[in-house]
């Protein structure tokens, strides 16, 4: 409970500092929009700034913003005058969908891969996956994406290059539509999962190795437990503990999206929305992101702590302690 109250000043601090940093960045939104356009005079720019409320002192602007946020009003985007909430909500499903799909893919592949490698550490499988994973880890994802596109979409002509639907989508039947979306999402999900798979499976391998070398493993085996039970019941449960932390921390990442492959695959996700907002100094959109990500980060940490209690009985939060 006390922890939850502690989050409030933390949240205020995060937003105040972010607000200040964005405001101190040189370049004003209105000026950037009409830069070097001789048809737009200085007076017009001043007039537009006034209409946006950008001529007010900083602390007033911040307090205005804060009072709006507390009423769940994220304001309007300076770029196109649409409500920020609407802009975020229309992109949320696609980013969330891709990230969830890739997270599932990561867990399904990385954990067995790590465990298998750890069981026969130094063996052929371990060495082989180590090399492959390091190559994939080192390869920049945009480059990998372009190579895969060249291979699957141009040379083999199997998959569409970019976007999330075909241009004749509306003329398709329902099964065709589903297949069309899956075909479009295959490469983006694969590429976004690759980085996670390489990282997580190495973590898993290292954790597993550590646990396998613990004396209680010997004890388990000495008690005559079957190898399967030793590995999957006793070893895996302990080895997976740090993974839970990592998954908790990746919660904000679910909404973050990535500018790089959203751009490469032309996917209308949140990553691009926030990137463009930052380039435009579109303060309301930037701040909405700050709020989202900070809340999710705090929530992620909080959930990871709670998950610990269930995964590891030794950890107990005692209000008397």
């Amino acid at each position, binding site marked *: 409970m006390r922890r939850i109250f502690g989050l409030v000043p933390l949240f205020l601090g995060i937003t105040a500092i972010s607000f200040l940093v964005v405001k101190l960045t040189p370049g*004003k939104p209105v000026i950037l*929009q009409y830069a070097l356009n001789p048809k737009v005079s200085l007076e017009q720019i001043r007039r537009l700034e006034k209409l946006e409320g950008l001529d007010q002192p900083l602390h007033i602007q911040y307090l205005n913003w804060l009072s709006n946020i507390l009423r769940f009003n994220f304001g309007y985007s300076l770029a196109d005058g649409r409500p920020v909430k609407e802009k975020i909500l229309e*992109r949320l499903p696609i980013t969330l969908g891709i990230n969830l799909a890739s997270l599932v893919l990561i867990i399904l592949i990385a954990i067995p891969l790590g465990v298998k490698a750890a069981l026969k550490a130094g063996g052929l499988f371990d060495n082989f996956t180590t090399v492959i994973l390091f190559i994939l880890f080192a390869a920049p994802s945009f480059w990998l994406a372009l190579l895969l596109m060249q291979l699957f979409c141009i040379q083999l*002509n199997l998959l569409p*290059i970019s976007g999330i639907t075909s*241009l004749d989508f509306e003329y398709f039947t329902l099964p065709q539509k589903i297949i069309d979306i899956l075909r479009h999402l295959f490469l983006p999900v694969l590429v976004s999962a690759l980085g996670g798979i390489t990282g997580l499976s190495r973590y898993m391998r290292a954790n597993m190795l550590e646990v396998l070398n613990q004396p209680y493993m010997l004890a388990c085996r000495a008690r005559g437990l079957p190898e399967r039970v030793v590995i999957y019941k006793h070893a895996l449960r302990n080895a997976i503990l740090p993974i839970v932390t990592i998954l908790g921390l990746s919660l904000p990442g679910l909404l973050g999206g990535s500018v790089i492959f*959203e751009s490469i695959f*032309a996917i209308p996700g949140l990553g691009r929305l926030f990137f463009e907002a930052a380039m435009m100094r579109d303060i309301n959109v930037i701040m909405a992101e700050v709020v989202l990500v900070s809340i999710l980060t705090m929530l992620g940490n909080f959930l990871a702590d709670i998950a610990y209690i269930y995964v590891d009985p030794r950890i107990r939060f005692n209000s008397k302690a």
Partner: protein
Amino acid sequence: MIKKFFIKKISFWLLSVAAFLFFVPTLDFAQDYGDAIVVASIADARNLIPILASDSASAEICGLLFNGLVKFDKDINLIGDLAESWEVRGDGLVIVFHLRKDVFWHDGHPFTARDVEFTYQKLIDPKVKTPYSGDFEQIRSLEVIDEYTVKVVYKEPFAPGLASWGMPIMPRHILEKEDLNTSRFSRNPIGLGPYRFKTWKSQEKIELVANPNYFEKKPYIERYIYRIIPDESTVFLELQAQGLDFVGLTPLQYKRQTDTPFFRKHFRKYRLSGTSFTYLGYNLNNPKFQDVRIRQALNYAVDKQEIVDMVLLGYGRVITGPYLADSWAYNKEVKPVPYDPKKAKELLRQAGVFNSNGDGWLEKDGKRFSFTIITNQGNEERLKVAQIIQRRLADIGIEVKIKVVEWSVFLTEYIDKRNFEAVLLGWSLPREPDNFDIWHSSKTDEGEFNFISYKNPEVDRLLEEARRTFDLEKRRQCYHRIHEIIYQQQPYMFLYSPDSLVALHNRFKGVEPAPIGITYNFINWWVPKRLQRYATIQP
């Protein structure tokens, strides 16, 4: 005998029928309707209310949905669009527009003078977030004479005002009671142009469909699909998969990457004259650049053709003045000076810049003559240009430093505050040549566009005169003289105008390149039925 003649006659007929069947279709006798054109943009549109649309994507879409009272024809001359004709009266103080009577909004409502009045009122309304009010603030009053006649009275004669009526007209019957700044119309517009709005999926695509009741005629191409693809490599991959039909190319793509059998088979490439130019501007408040001989010498010392050849692989034009090179305002008599480092050194010597201490670098009044060129970050082309200039000036003994600055800092801390020696930048070249805001001596304050502080009484007078007269011949003379003076005075070192290079899928017929580009007759483009690639609602 008769029989033979008969057979001959028959076979002649058969032949001509065959000829008719085989040859006539290729003579564009029957243009087919249908298909789609797919274009790509790196950025999404922001707002489809024409007077609020400030980015190029929005402007491009608005251009297909809406029309203005006037437009430019293929040779960049002003002609009527929604206005059938116009008269200029009272020494240029009054313009009377006679509107077309056969125009309807996409919802079937007739277009009238009330729509023009409404658009004007919104343009000058201080509560509307439009950046385009400038030209319309010169208007004293606008009067609706009858349903199809509008009388515009200016405060003083203002020739560029005529072209400003190319501003798309908005439908009064829909927007009258709306707040334009927050109206849903911005994402669901109703226009009267050749295409109607269909859907807009943010950051994904905008789709338009042909307007069967367009007042000129129904466009042949049924669907216009505007895809948003932010990554240039993806755009090029899509082009290779024929997923895009009409795409701008870089010089390298134009020359090498599209020089393959695949591209020659499926695409046509066009090299069109540029609509912008790149220059080196000198801060004329800085004593280093106040002597005209020094500026002229720098012009002799830099080989512009070399810059075009190296930076643009030759796809650009060396220019001598600030006007569209194919338009009536551009003075073709002003020839670029040759590359002549000897002449440059001689002029510098006359201006008191020469090597006095034997170190190889030139000095003025005992101090080394050196200056810094600033340019904005993220534009490789400009950086290369700056480096070539740096090298060529080093050849004659002038030391140049290059400073690359992030765009917003560049604008607010350097340009607006006049805090630079020389700046490498570009201007886009509007079809209406009036460039009062860039060259008039009254426009040198902070935030205004004569940031090099150019002051020339004759240019001032000519700029004012060219604004006051509607006589095209007089305006031509004014701009030609301005062009001549500015090239002689060299406040800018005029460098080049880059060509716009495009690839268009070769199933599109009816394309006729002209000085204004190729899209001016877009409603005449068509695709033969057998080559069509996309589904349409048409049977």
